[in-house]
């Protein structure tokens, strides 16, 4: 499924029944996909939100520390702020790598099988 794949056709693919969905949901294969997503996304979300809140709290209550000049007029506050940009870019890149190697193939396999309609 490349991004430049042809647009989805207007005709519906085979839509599995609710029973089939329940069966897949309980399967080990789907459990693995769910774990691969959650175990990556949930802790990372907690992580970047804490990191951001740390920044907010330091800005509020540690003015002296944040105002420390590092070089020229560049102080800790500015570097800390730019670090938030950097970590955001890095996390986005990391998730993309994780998704395309760990999530996409599993998801694609399940989707193809279910829509094939056995």
């Amino acid at each position: 499924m490349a991004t430049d794949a042809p647009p989805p056709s207007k005709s519906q693919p085979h839509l599995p029944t609710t029973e089939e969905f329940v069966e897949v949901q309980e399967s080990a294969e789907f459990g693995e996909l769910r774990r691969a997503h959650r175990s990556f996304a949930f802790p990372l979300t907690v992580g970047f939100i804490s990191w951001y809140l740390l920044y907010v709290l330091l800005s509020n209550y540690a003015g002296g520390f944040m105002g420390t000049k590092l070089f020229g007029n560049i102080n800790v506050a500015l570097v800390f702020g730019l670090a938030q940009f950097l970590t955001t870019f890095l996390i986005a890149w990391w998730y993309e790598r994780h998704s395309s190697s760990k999530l996409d193939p599993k998801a694609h396999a399940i989707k193809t099988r279910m829509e094939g309609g056995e």
Partner: protein
Amino acid sequence: MSPAITQVQLAASEVQLAANEASEHRPLIISLFAAFVIATLFITVWAGRQTKDAADFYAGGRQFSAFQNGLAVSGDYMSAASFLGIAGAIALFGYDGFLYSIGFLVAWLVALLLVAEPLRNSGRYTMGDVLAYRMRQRPVRTAAGTSTIVVSIFYLLAQMAGAGVLVSLLLGITSDAGKILIVALVGVLMIVYVSIGGMKGTTWVQMVKAVLLIGGTILITFLVLLKFNFNISDLLGTAAENSGKGAAFLEPGLQYGATGTTKLDFISLGIALVLGTAGLPHILIRFYTVPNAKAARKSVNWAIGIIGGFYLMTIALGFGAAALISQKEITDSNPSGNTAAPLLALHLGGVDSAWGAILLAVISAVAFATILAVVAGLTLASSSSFAHDIYANVIKKGKATEKEEVRAARLATIGIGAVSILLGSLARDLNVAGLVALAFAVAASANLPTILYSLFWKRFTTQGALWSIYGGLIVAVGLVLFSPVVSGDPKAMFPDVDFAWFPLKNPGIISIPFGFLMGWLGTVLSKEEPDTGKYAELEVRSLTGTGAH
């Protein structure tokens, strides 16, 4: 004399000053505005001809590439509040203005990791599609539609206010009637874009706008840095000195550090910004314009890169304005600093030179394009939700034809346009970044908890969904109503009256946890059993894309 009257008179006389400065450049500015309007109307008519069914109108036919959508997402997100508001806030408050942009950017990770792909996989046209997926349709759709429209109207209000201030200033319009006329003109244009061009037209307008905004920002950033020989430390030092506030200008605290209350307000703002993005309906519906979830994910990645780069440049714009223009000139032009960026362009080119006039006109046109594209996106989100969630699924109980649905969406566009013209002319002198922050708080309190519970919590029930949407919505809007944003403050919407008992300008710190709490409480207290079959469908679908439209 009441303080309000004094303020209005002051503002009027000061705008006059700036207007004289700008008035000789008026023909150039107007021609650039007109060029943008004509080009986008052309796109709109072209897109309108290709809009045949509901998927075209709501989702642009789902045929945009990840990069195109990433550009359009950026165009939808980088509002006048970002461009004018953040640059202005940095110009006046230094470092504290920069704090906004960090929250606005980090927020994208929530959308990326938890929302974009599942939403694309399990919904069709609106946020309500996902929220109502496994719930009783009518009540949840009504709630989702209500919250979509409220969030979008809050956001629209901010943009319309910005349009009134900016365009009036640039065209030298000082009368109240003239400003209201400008707001009305923006409103009419957005109605035309959305009702004729649908999602396809709106997406193209946003892409064009994103390119113009990024181009204009790169140009001004380059000129600012050139002035300081690319020595950022020198730029910051000059800004600090010229601001008259010294080193404090480069440290947190000028805007939010005054008292314990303002510090708490800052935390509240910070939480609302970081959690709001993934609950903004006009952003969420953009994920439906690409063929699949992978493309939705990649479009968020593009957006993070583009938006991040843009916010980094606003640092140069804001500090550049502070370094090159006196604080008095910035506040004289607009008390909230919203015109710092166009003023900076004028100063960079030379106040009395043709080059200065051209730069001012270019940046003004970019800001105008920005406002138009964002209001179009917001109008589309609310009219889609009205037509698809409320009209088709609640009023017509799912029996409306596609034609009827699209017609309802077009009519809703006109209604929402009219309401926002009315409200937009009421709120002209507020800092637009501040108003947008309120929209983020409402989105984070009402929408985000419900989206996350729906996608990831098996037990979540209809009652939980309703409690979290309405609970978050009512508390967020209610607290704003009784906050210094609305009354009891010289900068409030109604400065003459005082019914503010909630001390914070941003309600997020209370309303967001409340929204999450209500979703949980509504669920554990409900008598209904969750629909496990439907949840199986939603969960498998959201992670794999099985059966996605």
